[in-house]
């Protein structure tokens, strides 16, 4: 695990409204080790492999306080795949420290901008809200992006959106044997069919045997903001997005 900068501990306590504890860097590092050896088996290294659960998001579905989280780590969740664990309370606390800290790990080298200016760019010059509206069906709403992404990840998405396309927002192009071209967002696929939200926002299920072309796009629908926004403007937008922590 990477070393967590001292500044991170400050961010941790400041950014986590629900945090009741102040953790040391050693706690975070020990928590990282424990997480890797146990929790990551199911939750994955980024805490997002169990569907619907984002452990590094800083907020939890079944817990509010750090003590709640620690209780779940120790006792498991009955009726789910989350088992009880025989950690000490101190060790459970270290894992909580790691979870709380991970959402902001990418912020170590990030220089904050101005959130108000960032919001103005988001709604105005950047035209981000055109696609990333709360009601959008073709792009993530970003209402909680500050809770589930780190600043450097957001910055990368702005300048190089194709580098890591969100699994849930991949787009496809299909051409039927009848000559119809269907483009849209990939919702699901199997060996025999593909499910799409097409560009007219209709839910379509296509039989693959009826297609003469089918490709999943590796380019992003989102334009790059490299050269469109300068460094300060990018920092402003990232800072604004980090304030969007949503209701989970």
């Amino acid at each position: 695990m990477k070393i967590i900068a001292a500044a991170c501990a400050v961010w941790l306590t400041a950014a986590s409204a629900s945090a009741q504890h102040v953790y040391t860097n050693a706690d975070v590092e020990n928590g990282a080790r424990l997480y890797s050896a146990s929790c990551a088996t199911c939750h994955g290294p980024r805490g997002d492999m169990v569907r619907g659960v984002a452990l590094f998001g800083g907020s939890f579905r079944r817990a509010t306080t750090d003590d709640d989280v620690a209780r779940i780590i120790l006792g498991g969740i009955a009726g789910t795949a989350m088992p009880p664990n025989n950690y000490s309370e101190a060790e459970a606390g270290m894992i909580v420290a790691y979870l709380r800290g991970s959402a902001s790990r990418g912020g170590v080298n990030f220089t904050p901008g101005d959130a108000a200016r960032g919001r103005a760019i988001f709604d105005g010059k950047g035209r981000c809200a055109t696609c990333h509206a709360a009601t959008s069906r073709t792009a993530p709403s970003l209402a909680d992006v500050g809770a589930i992404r780190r600043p450097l990840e957001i910055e990368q998405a702005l300048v190089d959106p194709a580098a890591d396309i969100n699994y849930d927002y991949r787009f496809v192009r299909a051409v039927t044997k009848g000559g119809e071209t269907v483009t849209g967002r990939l919702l699901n696929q199997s060996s025999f069919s593909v499910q799409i939200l097409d560009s007219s926002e209709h839910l379509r299920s296509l039989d693959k045997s009826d297609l003469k072309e089918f490709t999943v796009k590796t380019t992003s629908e989102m334009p790059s903001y490299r050269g469109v926004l300068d460094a300060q403007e990018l920092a402003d937008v990232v800072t604004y997005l980090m304030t969007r922590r949503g209701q989970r």
Partner: protein
Amino acid sequence: MTAARTLLVAFLLSASLAAQVSFDRLLRSSAEPGNWLTYSGNLQSHRHSPLTQVTPANVKNLDLQWVFQSLSLEKFEATPIALDGVLYTVQPPNDVVALDGATGRTYWTYSYKPSTQARPCCGLVNRGLAILGDTLFMGTIDGRLVALDAKSGREIWNVAVAGARVEAGYNFTVAPLVVKNMIVVGPAGGDFGIRGFIAAFDPATGREKWRFYTVPGPGEPGNTTWAKDSWMHGGASVWVTGSYDPDLNLMYWGTGNPGPDWNGDGRMGDNLYADSVIALDPDTGKLKWHFQFTPHDEFDYDSTQVPVLADIEWQGRPRKVMLWANRNGFWYVLDRATGEFLSGKPFTKVTWTSGLDAKGRPQHQVTPTADGLVVYPHLAGGTNWYSPSFSPRTGLFYVPTWQDGHATFTKGPAEYVEGRAFIGTFPTGTTLSINGTQVNRRLPGEGHGAILALDPKTGDKKWEFAMNDITDAGVLTTASDLLFSGGREGFFFALDARTGALLWKAPVGGIVQAAPMSYAIGRRQYVAIAAGNSLYSYALKP
């Protein structure tokens, strides 16, 4: 005694004897094609049914007969036993049910609540039962072995297996193997630093007869392949059922990864007998030979595959071989009398080694790095525990595989603490959770499943049936040259075993993470598959 009463007694006796499953019946299972008496259908583990009513011509007329919905949300991985029209299977984690094979109605249920301290790595699962006499046998996820009366579900005995401590991560998920008058099992828990073993038990009492440790102790051959005291938590678990050759009187089992999974620095050496096939004398439990597929494994390439025993013509003469498609991405042909390596070829992209030498030993193995190293196959392997099949009719070896799967392996610290995962740093990969998802939005290059038909004589791939998603499903072939399987996409399907052509498919609504089997009642052939949380049975429309 009156004549009528004599007749009645004779009838009852014969009925009783007919229901008794002797070991002789297991040896000659092909003589009773309507039954499915062992995990893989026969002791050679062919997962091949001699039944022929369903054919490539009529398979399109298969019709759902019944669905048994389990009262469990755990993965349904068990293969049922079929005996005289009754199916016996395990509702995960450890409830046993007896079902009417014609209607799916329940005769009885045996409920077992395992300790909440049980901690299988990958779900509270069970892969099935064994039967001998009138008794069913099951290992539990809390380290116990249970015997049940097949007629009533009554518990006959329930014993704690010595040393299989639940707090230390030991658990039984494997369907036991019956050899002679013994019930043979081994523990899972290779991700928790257990010390693996294979042990034989008396079917009447549950008393242990012998034990072979898959990680040798001090003074035993192989112990020096482990640095210092790393053997104590060396893993080499056992979680897929072995096979038996009565002519050679040898029993074969595959073993799991050495621990910790992804950092071998503390266990320098080959780490015998992890990632190996071992041949044991079932009368003594003594090792006759071993073959290690992946020495000093740092990628979790368990060799917990089903040992498939085939008698084929090899280079112009008959030879008793073992076919083995390994999680490490190679498929092997071994001489099963001696363990001699005959051939080994990659069946998916492999980058962890430059290849195998003349004795089958991998060359130039790579190691995880502190910054992360991309390695093929994926940590879940080129294949895994999913049952393969061998058809004596086609001579082909059928394997469910993952193609183009890779992961990034990072070397991180691993410290043994009892009851905790002892693995190192969990790799990252493009393949989503091993627990599966309901949607598939992956790109083609991110890995997909495929069933391969491999020719052991030539080493060639005869055909490939590619799936869009990956697969955790086993394969069944039949004597009418059909192949049945499924995958994560939630289909159960039939292929032409000679060409790989898709002949029939049925949506089953859930991920197929089990292997199909076939049985008959009267003259009617059924094909059963567990998918999602249910067991489905199909037969031809009347």
